[in-house]
């Protein structure tokens, strides 16, 4: 039964790790803005697509 002492201490240390992760997430501002990142992630993609489109158009023009 003495394994319980060890297991409980390990479990609490693990849980403590999650608590630290949570505190870090708060500290790094992840809870402050839940909207802008969702928009931001789309930007690069759109820009790349624009560039690609332009390229394809240019190549089309070239072939014509």
């Amino acid at each position, binding site marked *: 039964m003495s394994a319980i002492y060890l297991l409980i201490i390990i479990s*609490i240390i693990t849980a*403590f790790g999650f608590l630290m992760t949570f505190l870090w997430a708060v500290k790094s501002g992840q809870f402050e803005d839940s909207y802008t990142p969702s*928009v931001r992630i789309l930007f690069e993609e759109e820009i790349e697509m624009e560039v690609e489109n332009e390229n394809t158009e240019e190549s089309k023009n070239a072939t014509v």
Partner: protein
Amino acid sequence: MPKGAAKIPCHHCGLTCKDKSISANNPTSEKALYFCCEGCKSVYEILEGNGLCNYYQLKEGEEHSSISNFSDESFDFLDLPEVRQKLIDFSDNHQTKITFAIPNMHCTACIWLLENLHKIEPAVLQSKVNFMKKELYVQFRESDFSLKELVRLLAKIGYEPVINLKSLNEKQAEEIQLSKSFYYKLGIAGFCFGNIMLLSFPEYLGLSKAFDGDFHRFFGYLNLGLIVPVVAYSASDYFRSAWNGIRQGNLPIDVPISLGILSLLLQSVFEIVTQTGAGYLDSLAGLVFFLLIGRWFQQKTYGRISFERDYQSYFPIAAIRRENGIEKSIPINQLQENDIIIVRSQSLIPADGMLLKGEAKIDYSFVTGEAEAVKVEAGEAIFAGGRQLGQAIELKLTKKVSQSYLTQLWNNEAFDKTSATAKEEQSLSLLADKIVPYFTPTILLIASIAGIYWWAVADFAYAIQIFAAVLIIACPCALALATPFTLGNALRILGRIGFYARNTATIERLAGIDHIVFDKTGTITQSQNTAIQYVGEPLTAKEEQIVYTLTRQSSHPISRQICDSLQQQQENLPFFELEYFEEKTGQGIEGKVEGQTLKIGNAAFVGEAVYDLFSPNETHTFVNFNGETKGYFSFSNAYREGLKEVIEGLQKEYQISVISGDKDTERANLQQLFGKDAELLFEQSPQNKLDYIQALQQKGKRVVMIGDGLNDAGALQQADVGIAVSENVNNFSPACDVIVEAKRFGQLVDFVTYSKEAVKVVKGAFVLSFLYNFVGIGFAVQGLLSPIVAAILMPLSSITVVVFGVGLSYYNAKFLNRG
């Protein structure tokens, strides 16, 4: 160039361009791009030059606000070290971090552009948008690019940050810090709560006795260790606020909560140390956790209903001071008496002063609600809050900013009618405020009696639990929250649709009225946007300019209208030097310009016979050059849209009067419109209007005065609720309680009905909240509630009351949005 063939949207902001005069070449197609103003064009050029034209693709037809013009000196105050120090978040040799509030951002394209600032200005290292808060966080190299230049860049591309005294007060930064530490507290409480529950599992299942004593002690001490951060850190706000309250000699609701926490803690520590039991640490941690969740919900909701109007944000935050002949911009809180300041066109007067130099035309709409500018002669006083409309003027300050006229006005008790009607039973918030101080001692008493009873009947440990449960369930949060939440939400809903009430007490008073007095001119008739027509011998361009020169000197509404209509025809209309000018009140204006004597005024003033063929619904203003009448401007007295519906709606429940300063030419018209019962009074001076309202009040009536804030400020102030109908919502009038956008005038009936509903909802919420407490205390006293259940029920009861109030106020508002 063809004019007005088709509506051309501005390439940048989407507004319709006046003509094709401002254009740029489009690099991707042959069609030229058109802009509504030079500001928009310059933004386009900045974006184009930096390869940021993707902005226009992302924009997808969103209309963007036109670029506001700002002078080069506008942001000079940012060079001042004190101002800079207050604004920036962090600074070292390499970089500076700053957060701006930018209300102008409103779509994906805005985010994109603002986050690509580094492409425009390499000194910007990083820019990050928080769209929900409308904030921009910028990291930049200040050695290459000053704060002022950064703000000017933002303003240039159409995102001028809002910088005012409030943001200088560092309040916002503190709030962010506070909410972050709040999340820490919540997280730690939740973590400890969960683990204490796990470790209490043997206790829950009655297993603790099955094992030997060591486990028991081990779990007990682990729990004790886990409770330390909960009590010491997570619950610290309650202790602090309770202690502050006690020191100031009152008993805030945090006192019973703190007492409950402490009694549970001491009892548990005693039991664990003496090995007599497992204590109630799970209850305690749960209690703190749920209390914090309740508070988090309250903060969220409060944040959403927070009322954003703050007169401070109307003030410029720096002024240009002249010292030994040098002009220098300094923060207004450094202004001293006898300082000489320069106030440029469109700038607000920061403090009371005396005019030294210049042609002062002060728009006091911020202070009095009067839309017409006031001319001030040199040596006369100019009051804070006015806005200079003409050329730059020089002022000598007679007071410091902090004690200025406007601050006094706004803080003046005389303008706050809450104190005047405090005695009346209808004041709901007052009721709640009165109850809360008695609440805490009463609850402490009940809890102590219950505790002593159960100590005698059962044991001490059980008594402690009941003591704590009563203290916690009885928290009068729901009672305290019902009024501010419900009426605050009502205030917000009304504000959003153009009905700005001063405070929640105004809504209460509006619900209790029984007599409505209308002002005529500017209220039931429109003062602006009336059709102006010139009839007579056509004026040459030069004559028009002379008329313009003369009318722009005067602040009379008719002059302003003529002046504005001439300006609308031709922007930047040139004007001449004035040789002589005089305004004859009630008659007209005369002057000498370019050697020509000009008279503009009513028929008698210019020496014309009165035409009988004019309809009574029109006003005529004649133009007379060198003694010869050229023609007249005619203005139609249009009644406000929706007036009929408003009157019909109000007639059923309220007595109506109309009070006017004009002659009674319109009596028949108005009597028909307002019905036989309505009292119509003509040729009333502002004092008469005030007296009339006072007389009604002495008869026991609760009176609403609806005016335009021009010549009825006294009456608006005297009335139980003064409503100013405003063509321009930025008007600020300390005399009135409510400002209604003119275009929402037709919904006046809905507004009054809605206020009544809102007050009913508050009363309902009161009943609900009392019921909660009675039932809750009833159960707790009998020992049927454990502290942890009480801790769950307490925020739950607050939440139900808030949801009840806010939900119903939304529900009731459904019919308001139809307009």
